[in-house]
């Protein structure tokens, strides 16, 4: 039986390390914990990026970043340097990278579709047009479609894990 993955939290962080979106799916858990996880993961991601630069690797998937009590934190960096961090519930079994990469791909696609919305830039200040975070924050309150997509992925991960 393949391991049942449980997605506890997702974080999107801009290339300038601004948080774009932090969603938690675990019930009854502290949001603070996942904010902490997203924030601290940036340190590890920086280490991984430096290592990737040294080895000239262009892989988006940054592998397991670290484990923390009952979650395993994985990282992913898109070609445009948006960082995606997910926290999976920790299990005492092997988690296949392919599964994790599938989740990341889905999240990346959700983000891409959200950013492709041309109306996002309507109210954005001119000087900040390169930073995704300001883009997203500008429309943050109206930013339901993206959240919904991410939530759907979160649900799907649990469903797929148990179905197969």
């Amino acid at each position, binding site marked *: 039986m393949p391991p049942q993955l449980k997605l506890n939290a997702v974080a999107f962080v801009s290339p300038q390390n601004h948080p774009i979106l932090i969603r938690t799916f675990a019930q009854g858990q502290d949001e603070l914990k996942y904010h902490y996880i997203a924030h601290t993961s940036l340190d590890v991601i920086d280490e991984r990026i430096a290592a990737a630069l040294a080895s000239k690797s262009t892989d988006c998937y940054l592998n397991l970043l670290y484990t923390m009590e009952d979650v395993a934190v994985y990282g992913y960096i898109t070609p445009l340097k948006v960082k995606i961090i997910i926290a999976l519930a920790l299990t005492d079994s092997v988690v296949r990278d392919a599964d994790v990469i599938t989740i990341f791909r889905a999240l990346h696609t959700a983000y891409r579709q959200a950013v492709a919305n041309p109306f996002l830039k309507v109210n954005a200040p001119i000087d900040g047009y390169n930073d995704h975070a300001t883009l997203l*924050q500008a429309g943050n309150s109206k930013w339901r479609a993206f959240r919904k997509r991410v939530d759907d992925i979160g649900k799907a991960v649990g469903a797929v894990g148990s179905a197969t």
Partner: protein
Amino acid sequence: MSAQRVTITYSGPIVFLSTDHWKQIQNSLVSQLPLRNLHWKSTSRNALRSIQELDVKLVPFEMLREDQAASQIPQSVLEKPLLHLYIFTCEDSEVYRTTVRKQLKEWHASVSTRKNQEWLIIHVVRPDQSVAQGRLFQMKTSVLDKVKADFNLDKKDRCVQLVWSAEKDNPAVWADTISKIKEGVLSSFDAALAQREEEVKRSEGQRQMPGWNFCTFFILKESVASSLEGMNLHEDALQQYYELESIFFQVLREKNLSWFGALITPMPTDDSSPLLSVTKKPYRDLILANTISVFDFRVYLLARQCILLSKIGDMEELCRKAASFLSTFSRTLRDVENTLPPFFIESWIYSSALSVVDQSDEWAKRLTLDKAALSAFNAAKGELLELARQQLDVLGIATGFLPNKPPFSLALPSTFDPADKDPKTKRGSMTITKTELLSSMEDQDTLYELYVNVTNRAIELYASAGRRKFALKLHGSLAALDIHRGRLVNALQTYTSLPAHYSPHGWTSMEAYMLNRALSIHEAAEKPKDREWIHVLLHFLRAYVDDGGKDLLLSEEDCKAYVEKLVAALKEAAQTLDNDTPFPDHPALSVSLVEPHAKLAESRDGALLQVVVNNRLPCDVPAEEVRLQLTGRENSQITFTAKVSSIAPGRTELTLFCPSSAMGTYALANTQISMPRLLFQWRHSKTPKQIKAGNMPTLVYIPKDARALDVRLKQPPLIELGTMSRIRVLLSTGRNEVATASVKLSAPSGIKFQYEDTQLIGEDTPAIRTDAQALTFLDLKAGQTVVAAVPHSDASAYAYMRINITVDYVTTTEPDITRTLRLSRVVATGLPVEINVQDFFRGTRLFTAFTLSTKTHQHVRVRSAQLLSDSETTGVRVKSCVGQKPGIVTLTPQQPGRFLFQMDSEKGTAREGLKLKITYRMLREEVESLIEIAVSEVVSEQLPLEPHRQDLTDKLIQALETNASWVELYGVTGELAVPGVTLTEDEFGAGLRQVMEKLNRKRSPTSFGEWRDIVIPVDVPQIHILASARLQILENPFSAEVEKAEKRTRPLYAGQPISALLTIKTSFHWAPPEDTRVQSYNMRYDIEDLTQDWLVSGRKRGDFVAKDGETFSTPVTLIALHHGELALPKVGVNALPLPGEHRMRSSVVPSCETYEVHGAEKVLVLPRGGRSTFVVNMGTNTSM
């Protein structure tokens, strides 16, 4: 299972082995060990493996215990020797054949039967012998050859000769032998390993068959691993363990764990023993006995892996593996938590994590790690320590020493139920054994100390690994502990410093959380709500209104009520501040413009501006005033304000009023919302760089208020050169009844204004007050315009004068508002015309010609030029030489105007105070005023056009500016035909048409508009001597001047002498008054020698004494050189220096002017007369 060493046996003739020689050889051989640089090409592995160094155990063949082979348990392949050596020395082949060979045969028989073991015969010879043996044509075969022939049964050469003596002991002599030994070792290792791996593969293939036992398989596979480890092939050994681990998980998934014991059978010290020790339990025996628990098995597997990792030197991987094992396996343990002693898991993780850190540090001492590896190692160790720290969180919460809330509760497993974890409940008799945990469960201070220690260790490691964010998080938890312990000051300090680390990258949720903590601590500590508190609070509110800032505020149920409370407290606290505190760019409030156009207040002076105040807080914000500042040209600033009591949440529209506004375009500079002692400020002005980037400033347009108080400056209508310049200040009150209005003028060019000498012009002048700084008008009525002439210092150096005007005025209706009007005006100071003067003296008369030309490209209309004299005082009578006034003269750059005047003066009287007065205006001004007259005429007829008044004027002026074709016609006729105006069909077009019709009518320029005057003082020129020279042709030398009136009758001929008389009349009429007493001057005349026309004989040059009114005459004779109409020679008359008078070291020459009376005269000279008779032969008279 400790690492095995490679074993090599040696043997030889007993006699030889007992010699000293052998001892020496043995020592030398041992010194060559360990073997270095082995290259193993395995049959089952692709890559060539290199073994840097291989330790070898050398044992006598006889000591080998044969019973080991009987053991059923698979051991490392190194358990058995890999190579057997037989060492002998024998110099004589006879001896060999008789004795040594037999012994060799025996040995060979015993070693060659062994599986997977190699053998090697070493023949030791002395160096001198080997030389002897190398001789050519040797009859006997050497001992070595014999040995080879006897024992080398297959192709492989297993005999080697060692040329060795105690004197010649160096590595070189061993090279051959050592390489043979390496070859042998590798070959037998390879064969043995291949065989063992084959077995493993076979066993793995049988996994699904009944009766297969994982433990047996494990032991078998592990033997491969330990064989590889014994050969120092750590990577390959580790690979075996990884394979074992994955097979374990596979088996685990297949739920085929029947041969294992329980998941865990906790032993008393399981929770506190070092994790990575493989000797703390007889693991192999447990495995062999099939009684090992999964717990022990996993621990053993991990420990083996970690040991190998430490040998490879990958410390980071080691720690990470341990940490992830601890977290993942503890999850499994949770399932059976009820069977374990209380806090077994926490204790196990805690002690294991710490022991891994200690153990890895121990191992790392042997290694030299580069910087990157070291920081990765530190980071991994930090994670382990954090893991240990989290166990303390759990313990603390369970024992009640720590509160069950974040951040302590973050470490709790999701299924945590505090009731389960009552430390008093005892399951069975066992307890945890980690002493420091036991004592910290008893005593909270011990726990805290432990907590702080472990956390600090982790922080230190994170810091050295460059993991700032991890360290921050731990700092946060330390601060939380401080709160719990009541050390509020420490906690406050941490919590107030932490937000700064989270805010720069927009982690407002974290920032808000930290600030929230800081605020609650502040309250709990009952510290005064001082400036610092206000700062923290404002930062909190900033984070609060940001997106995501509300995410983590769990401690307050009702955010609105909480914020409301804070804002109320803020207001109170702010009032206690001792001075105004600005707080820039707070996002909770914002002021923005509704539209860029300000409106006029209409009923009073000033402008209104609509703004929207946006309050993003959920409650009212107390405020006093909303203020908005605009910057205009030359940094002029105007301020709009509105008084408010509070700002409601959401958008609020406000109208701001500015009492003193001037028309123009302004940029939004800054906005401010103030509550007592606290100013929220926002800057809106843009730096040039921002503007370059396309970030334009917000503009505000303020319309002209026609009925507001206004000040204009004018050049005075009369400019009198030589007197103090005055500028006219026109103050019109508009709708205001002004109590006081003080006008200050300042010019950047440094011109000074002398307010004290201000003159008011016109009737009904108001009272004024003047001092050195300002001119103040008092009590002005509405609609009044007062004109004051303010003298100022010389400004003739500038063509234009820029003047900044500041008017502070108070109206009678609003006596408490002082309005300030700031204006900047430019006044032309230079004269538009240039004047040149030319004087011509004729006896007592003087003709003066003034030439007026424009200084600029503008046309100047001159209505009149008058030379004024007060004839009674000056004694000069002036008469204009232009009899008929031509009306208006237009000066253009091409065509200057000339004005000629004639003066008669009486001798000796004071001749001063002549003034030239020019009445003029610029063509542009004239046309503009003409248009304005026409427009106002039309507007008065058609009142609906009133709002278009300015537009009409502007349109026409613009049309005139673009095309100059109207100028000529206007100059001649006064009709203004405006070219190139397209008329629209509406009311405006009709109005325009009417105006143009009016303009097209003839109008005398003198009939309208204002003219300006310039009065220029002109001095009557003075001259000491006025000489008039005359050269007269005489009838004959003797006819004196008596006949001069007579008409000359005799013609003049070229070449004949002509008598002439030079008369010079001198007059002292125009002499300066101070020199009138002088009776005579010495003078000299000079007749110019025109060598082309005239020969002059007689006194061409001579001196004479000139007296007033007297005439000097001298005769000369002229000879005309050719015939024709000739002008008479010119005569120059000069004054000689005054004798004896010197001024400034040069002689004084009286001024003198000469005019030649005969200057225009010409005489007709005929060709020389005479008659010539020519006799022409008429030919012979044929009749004769």
